[in-house]
Every structure is written in structure tokens, then in C-alpha cells.
């Protein structure tokens, strides 16, 4: 039985009701009085009329109540029906869809590259897979063999689209991630590798001078990290070079005999000859240029030194790790390549001592 809504029964009823109403009136009066005090204080303190300015301004900012406009008087769906011509594809696009369309159309923005590479990958997959890998430039740089790629593609399409997080579970396949979606804009970095089968001997050589090049067992790809990458040892690097270029040309720019990379020992004449071979290539290995930079810092009078010691070095017949950049400064010698050879040991000697000085 709901007692609350019904007046209380019995002779006390009216009295109780009266009491209830009395209490209620008291409460209301209290509220009114509170309001009066508040207003009075505001008036006396002078802040009661602060929200009222002159009539003109009041009219200006009055709330607008017309149909078709918002309370400020602005038309709110003004751009709904407008169409814009895309400067790229010359199509007429609705205004609200213009920005996303432009993103896709110009190939910029987060999703467009992803979608494009995915489309590319699926096209390649579906059309034919036996064709040259050379044709598909972006696939070249990726690690996936086609079978693995298909598997990965299926998994990718299972999940929802357009988020970089999604491919994370595929990251550790074979220890390397080379998803076909991989484009420039991704947060996580991964190791790409190159398949040595697809490269010609010159390319292999140039690659090996700049990169680690050790061939991974699972993927048969060459490591693209620097010459000093911590994942592979020098022994591995040398083995790769022997394997790829033949036993006559172990082309480690850093010294073969020394185990650690820091020292620049004088290699034997064989490596000197091999250096002569690829002296023509403009590539400078990172270690070489690094060492030459270091040497330039420490030995200011590099050039005169080189010229002085030229005769000595002809006799010594050794070449150390040195700068390929030195080739530019060679002069006054008949055989340019030979001269650059000589310059190397000169530079290396002071550089070695200076390096160790720094270490100490």
C-alpha cells in the first residue's frame, strides 16, 4: 500500500497534512529569502547588472530563433550540397567527402599508402607468381616468399582494416617482418633483407661494401644492416663474401686479419690487389668514411703528409684501412689507384693512435 501519495488516514489526517504543508511553506519561504539576500547583495556590491550592456550590443548577440539557421544565425548545412572539383582526378566530389578523397587520390595520409600497397600485393599475387621478382620493386625489398605472403595476406584480411597495430602478430615470423603492407609510415621498424639470387655480381659487390650482407638461414636473404651489425660476426661476413664473390675476392673493407673492427691493420698484398679492383666504384664504405673523417679531424695536414710518405709507402707495399675519399686528393702521381693505396696507410697510422688516445 502506497502511503506516501495518499493523505494519512484518521482524524490526525488533516492535522498531519496541515503540518506537512506548513513544513513545505517554510522551506519555500526559506528559498525565496535566500534569493532576496543574494540579489540584494549583488545590487549593493554592484555586480547585479553586469550581464547587461547597451541596447545595441544586446540586439546584436540576441539568440536567433529562425528556421534553417542555428542560434547564432549561421546556416549550418551550407556546404552540404556543394561539390568540389578534385585537382588531381578532375572529378566532382561532395564537400564532406572531399578531404578523405584527396588523401587517397594524392597518395598521402596514413591509410592511402597501406591500401595502395595492399592492392599492389593482391594484384601481384592474383595475376601470376612465377614472373620475375625484379618487376615488383616493392616486393623485392620484402622478406616474404610468396607462399608465406599469401598466408599472411589471409590473416591480414581476416582482421579489420586500416590500423597499424593489426599486423603486429605477424611481426615475428621468421624473425623478420617484411609485410607487403610495409610502407614508410609505420611505427615499428623491421629488418628487410635482400635475396642475393636476384642481384648481379656488381650489385652484390656494391652491396657487400656497404652492408653486412650475411645470409640468413631461414630466409636466404642478405642482412641489410651496416658492416658492424651486432647480429653477425666478421667471420660470417667474410664467409658470405667468399661464397658470393669467389674465394679470390674477400672484400671486407675492414681488416681481415684483425678480429675486432676498430683496428686498421695493414692487410696483406692480396687484399691490396683486390682493393685495386673495386677502387673504381664510387661507393665508400661507412667504416672507411668514418675513419677518414676521424683522421681528418686529428691530422690537419693530411695532404702534405700523404705526399711526403708516398715514396715510403711504395716500398712498404701495404695498405691499411683508409678513406676512399682520399682518392680525390691524390695528385702528381702517375698511377692514381696506386697512390690512393699509399695514402691509406699514412692516414691509418695517425688515426689509429688518435683513436686509442681518445679511448684512453
Amino acid at each position: 500500500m502506497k502511503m506516501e501519495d495518499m493523505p494519512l488516514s484518521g482524524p490526525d489526517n488533516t492535522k498531519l497534512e496541515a503540518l506537512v504543508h506548513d513544513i513545505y511553506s517554510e522551506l519555500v519561504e526559506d528559498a525565496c529569502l535566500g534569493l532576496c539576500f543574494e540579489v540584494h547583495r549583488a545590487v549593493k556590491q554592484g555586480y547585479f547588472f553586469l550581464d547587461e550592456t547597451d541596447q545595441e550590443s544586446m540586439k546584436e548577440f540576441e539568440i536567433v530563433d529562425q528556421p534553417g539557421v542555428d542560434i547564432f544565425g549561421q546556416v549550418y548545412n551550407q556546404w552540404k550540397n556543394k561539390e568540389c572539383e578534385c585537382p588531381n582526378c578532375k572529378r566532382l566530389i561532395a564537400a564532406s567527402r572531399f578531404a578523405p578523397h584527396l588523401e587517397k587520390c594524392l597518395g598521402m595520409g596514413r591509410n592511402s599508402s597501406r591500401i595502395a600497397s595492399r592492392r599492389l600485393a593482391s594484384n601481384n599475387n592474383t595475376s601470376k607468381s612465377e614472373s620475375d621478382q625484379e618487376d615488383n620493386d616493392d616486393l623485392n625489398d620484402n622478406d616474404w616468399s610468396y607462399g608465406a605472403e599469401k598466408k599472411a595476406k589471409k590473416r591480414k584480411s581476416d582482421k579489420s582494416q586500416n590500423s597499424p597495430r593489426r599486423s603486429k602478430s605477424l611481426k615475428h615470423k621468421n624473425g623478420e617482418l617484411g609485410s607487403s603492407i610495409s610502407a614508410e609510415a609505420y611505427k615499428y621498424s623491421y629488418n628487410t633483407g635482400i635475396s642475393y639470387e636476384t642481384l648481379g655480381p656488381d650489385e652484390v659487390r656494391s652491396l657487400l661494401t656497404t652492408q653486412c650482407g650475411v645470409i640468413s638461414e631461414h630466409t636466404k636473404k642478405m642482412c641489410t644492416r651496416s658492416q658492424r651489425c651486432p647480429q653477425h660476426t666478421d667471420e660470417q661476413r667474410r664467409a658470405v663474401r667468399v661464397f658470393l664473390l669467389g674465394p679470390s675476392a674477400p672484400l671486407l673493407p675492414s681488416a681481415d686479419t684483425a678480429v675486432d673492427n676498430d683496428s686498421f691493420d695493414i692487410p696483406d698484398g692480396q687484399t691490396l690487389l683486390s682493393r685495386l679492383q673495386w677502387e673504381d666504384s664510387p661507393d665508400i664504405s661507412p667504416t672507411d668514411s668514418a675513419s677518414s673523417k676521424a683522421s681528418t679531424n686529428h691530422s690537419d695536414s693530411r695532404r702534405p703528409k700523404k705526399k711526403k710518405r708516398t715514396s715510403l709507402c711504395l716500398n712498404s707495399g701495404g695498405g691499411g684501412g683508409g678513406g676512399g675519399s682520399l682518392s680525390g686528393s691524390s695528385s702528381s702521381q702517375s698511377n692514381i689507384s696506386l697512390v690512393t693505396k699509399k695514402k691509406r696507410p699514412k692516414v691509418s697510422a695517425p688515426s689509429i693512435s688518435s683513436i686509442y688516445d681518445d679511448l684512453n
Partner: protein
Amino acid sequence: MSKESRMRATINQKLTEMGERERLKELLRSKLTECGWKDQMKAHCKEVIKEKGLEHVTVEDLVVEITPKGRALVPDSVKKELLHRIRAFLAQHAT
């Protein structure tokens, strides 16, 4: 009659002691502000003040003008709810 007055006194005392009065006051104030009663009353105050003159208006003036109007303008829903709560309290605590 004295019984009645004694009863009233007891009830009032209980209301205050148990904090119910404060609670009811707060409830009423918030409800009145919500429903726009307060703004209405303030607008009325403005008129009174403009009438009486800014410098010379007193609390009494305002009270006299505001209270009857205020009582009349309380919305029915608010009134009903408050009555309901007071009755409930009485039902619980009346002897």
C-alpha cells in the same frame, strides 16, 4: 491543541536534528534552479530594482515583492515531490 503543538515541535526538532531539513532545503534549491524558477525570479527582481531605484532598494522591498510571487511560481512537480518527501519522513518518525 497543546498535544498538537508538542507534536509539531517534536517533528520539527527531529527534522533538524536528523539533517533532513537541510537535505530538503538543498533539494528544493536545486530543483528550483533546474526548472528556471530562479531566473524568473531574478528577472522580476530586476524590474523591482529598476522601479525602486538602484541605490535605495532594501531587503524588505525585495522580500515583500518576491515572496508571494515566488510561492506561486513554484512548479507543481517540485511541490509534489517535496510534499511526498515530507510525508514520508513524518510517516517514519511520527509517534
